[in-house]
């Protein structure tokens, strides 16, 4: 069984606002959510900016009792899912709920809960940690909380593949629905990485920009961390049409593969191969791709390797396409990145436009040149790239 799979609901919480409408409005305006990191003493850390979901107020979405087992990353996942489900207006019978899937991505899980527990243990010499530390920190906490909220009992799991987590999650959910293993799916990713320990670990890796994220710009100085969540409701086209749901976009292809090259250095060949796999999975010709939402971290090496991969796959068509990296707007939200970028890609397909790459200063002959201001652009197909540390690549192909 092979079915066409469409998106009928999107939801997100990010540095660009508390929902998908605010997110896309900021994308349209090229308004970056990057700013000084709050809530953490950044004294002595070599970077001070991040893209935090400042508008998110948990108390507006959960009562105090509900919040007890939920780390921030799980809260974000739930709120994004509620928005997506509301837009989709999916109404499942008890039987259908047994075939409804949830696949989420998260790089870190409940890092803040773990940090707080271990700080009290190691530093304050507290004799015990909170009994819900484990349920809060487990990477599947968001997915599991969603099963409780929705009553869905089908295949549910969480993917943790660093910066590709959400693309892997959406891609696998897409395959589940396409091949009839699940009737509907909720898929995306969530991340809340802003803890002191985590910031120190990123500082040590020397890939974070001291000021801002400038993908494909010659003077780029690294990535900027972000937080947030985005979720998509996926269902077969036939079902969506039959129930009169609004089809936001179609997911047509997914590709994944490993570089087997280096733990942190990207491989242009590995990225090119996986973009090719995604296009082949969707039966899409390279020349029909109009827009690329790039992995585009703004690090020196990623942007060169990704540009090389794009030139390999698309050849001279690269000049006709539009490439953008919305990480310059919503930051690099790690395990949520692919999901936020999927929302930007879907909104772009719907509006026939491209969100700009913010903070761009100067073209780099070694990289492609991105779209730097909001642009109306007719396109039928867009791809969204995620290339994770560890050499794990995942690419989604979407159609209008």
């Amino acid at each position, binding site marked *: 069984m092979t079915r066409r799979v469409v998106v009928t609901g999107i939801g997100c919480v990010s540095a660009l606002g508390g929902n998908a409408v605010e997110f896309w409005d900021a994308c349209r305006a090229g308004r970056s959510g990057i700013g000084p990191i709050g809530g953490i003493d950044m004294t*002595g850390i*070599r970077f001070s900016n991040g893209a935090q979901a400042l508008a998110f107020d948990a108390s507006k979405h959960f009562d105090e009792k509900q919040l007890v087992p939920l780390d921030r990353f799980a809260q974000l996942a739930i709120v994004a899912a509620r928005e997506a489900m509301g837009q989709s207006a999916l109404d499942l019978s008890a039987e259908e709920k047994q075939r409804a899937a949830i696949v989420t991505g998260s790089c870190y899980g409940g890092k803040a809960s773990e940090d707080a527990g271990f700080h009290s243990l190691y530093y304050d010499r507290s004799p015990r940690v909170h009994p819900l530390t484990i349920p809060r920190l487990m990477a599947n906490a968001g997915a599991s909380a969603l099963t409780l909220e929705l009553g869905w009992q089908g295949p549910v799991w969480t993917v943790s593949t660093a910066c590709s987590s959400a693309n892997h999650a959406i891609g696998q959910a897409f395959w589940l629905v396409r091949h009839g293993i699940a009737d509907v799916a909720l898929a995306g990713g969530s991340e809340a990485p802003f803890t002191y320990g985590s910031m120190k670990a990123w500082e*040590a*890796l*020397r890939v974070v920009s*001291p000021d801002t994220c400038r993908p494909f710009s010659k003077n780029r*100085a*690294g990535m900027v961390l972000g937080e947030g969540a985005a979720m998509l409701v996926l269902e077969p086209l036939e079902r969506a049409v039959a129930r009169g749901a609004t089809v936001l976009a179609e997911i047509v292809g997914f590709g994944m593969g490993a570089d087997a090259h*280096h*733990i*942190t*250095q990207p491989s242009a060949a590995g990225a090119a191969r996986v973009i090719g796999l995604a296009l082949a999975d969707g039966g899409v010709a390279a020349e029909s791709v109009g827009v690329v939402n790039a992995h585009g971290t703004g690090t020196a*090496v990623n942007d060169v390797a990704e540009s090389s991969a794009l030139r390999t796959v698309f050849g001279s068509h690269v000049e006709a396409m539009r490439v953008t990296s919305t990480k310059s707007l919503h930051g690099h939200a790690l395990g949520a990145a692919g999901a936020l970028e999927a929302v930007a890609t879907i909104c772009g397909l719907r509006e026939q436009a491209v969100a700009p790459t913010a903070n761009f200063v100067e073209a780099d002959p070694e990289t492609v040149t991105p779209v730097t201001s909001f642009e109306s652009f007719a396109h039928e197909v867009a791809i969204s790239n995620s290339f994770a540390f560890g050499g794990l690549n995942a690419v989604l192909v979407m159609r209008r």
Partner: protein
Amino acid sequence: MTESTVPPEIMERVLKTLAETQKLPLERVTATATFQELEIDSLDGINILFALENEFDINIPDESARLVNDIGELAEGVWKLVSEKQPKA
């Protein structure tokens, strides 16, 4: 090439730290060896910077780390940071 201003004891500690971090025999790690000769890639570089920061109790800024191309320049950079840290006589 200008002559190194790095005191021998500082150079010795830099080379020893590098050898230990890279699991290389000390005799292979010389002041004139290139990173390429020692098969040091960018991730190794980060590990070396971390080890040097601990060894000398210094903070090596990302911008200066990016400009370093060989062990001589690395040792010069470390010595500069160590000198700046020492109280003026």
